[in-house]
């Protein structure tokens, strides 16, 4: 499986985390994700995710004047979004820790830890 495919599942949480830090507009969000070390996501993939998160009520959007340039659509995390983000973070930990252990060990059957 490619890194891109692995990323897709967790992209919702990555995007919500960026938005929690500070309300952003689309292009800004894409750059921040790349700066965070995820340069392999195509920038456009954030838009289906943003639509989905809005539909679920985890984020909202508002047209605002940007410091430099025209009006832009900014995204904000809602309180439902905060809760969901906590949940995903917990779930992620539940997966990541055992998977790390498993992958790090190599042969599972011989381990008696």
């Amino acid at each position, binding site marked *: 499986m490619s890194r891109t495919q692995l990323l897709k599942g967790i992209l919702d949480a990555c995007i919500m985390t960026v938005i929690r830090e500070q309300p952003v507009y689309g292009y800004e969000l894409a750059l921040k994700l790349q700066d965070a070390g995820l340069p392999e996501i*195509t*920038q*456009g993939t954030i*838009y*289906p995710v943003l*639509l989905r998160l809005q539909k679920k009520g985890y984020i909202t959007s508002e047209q605002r004047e940007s410091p430099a340039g025209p009006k832009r*659509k900014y995204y904000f995390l809602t309180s439902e979004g905060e809760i969901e983000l906590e949940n995903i973070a917990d779930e992620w930990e539940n997966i990541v820790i055992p998977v790390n252990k498993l992958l790090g060990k190599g042969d599972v059957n011989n381990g008696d830890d």
Partner: protein
Amino acid sequence: MEMTKTLIQENNDKREQLTEDNKKVYEDFLVYLRTDLRIDEHQGEEILMEILNHLLEAQADGVPADEIFGNDPKSFADELIAELPSEKKRGRTGFIAGQFLRIAAFLLIVQGVMTFILPYFTAVDTSVGVGNMILLGILITVIVLAAIRVVFRLLRQSLFKDNPKKAERMAMLKAAVYGMIGFGTIMAAALFVPDFGPVINMEWWTYVAAGLVLYGLSKWINKKAHPEKEVSEQA
């Protein structure tokens, strides 16, 4: 909330700032979204504007369009469409009813004008079978709606292609064939279906008046179905 019409206008203006290559990809993407009849028009225009803004900013930073659309822009568009809210049922029913009324109005007015003019030139039977009139109205509505779907589908098939000229020619050819079938069906129904239902013989202005009433009704329904926006004629 910005009006849908304003968004479309703004999009037309801003699109001119795109480079040749970026414009081609973006316009394919735009047509693909606008010809998807399931999408709520306003929501569709909002996301189109957002992505246009994104593209313009990326362009200014020297980032190519495939960084945004990926190497398969069609599946990117499909992914987006899957998340967009669909047009309300009311809007769709209103659209179909409005079309039917407009076509019926057109038929009545043509009938009225013919009833008025023809007797000056030749002795004609100006009586009309009500059944035939209704059948023709329904038939034309169905064919017009089918034609809209077919044209949109052909258009969509010609997008995101490496050889747009060839794809366009194929689409035109298919459209011509479908057009002839549709038109032939209507002509055949008008000429060969025998009169049925009550036969009426009215003054020419009665048809015209009835036609105008139906036309007004279709306008009213359109307004009801799309409360905050004018129906745009732009494709």
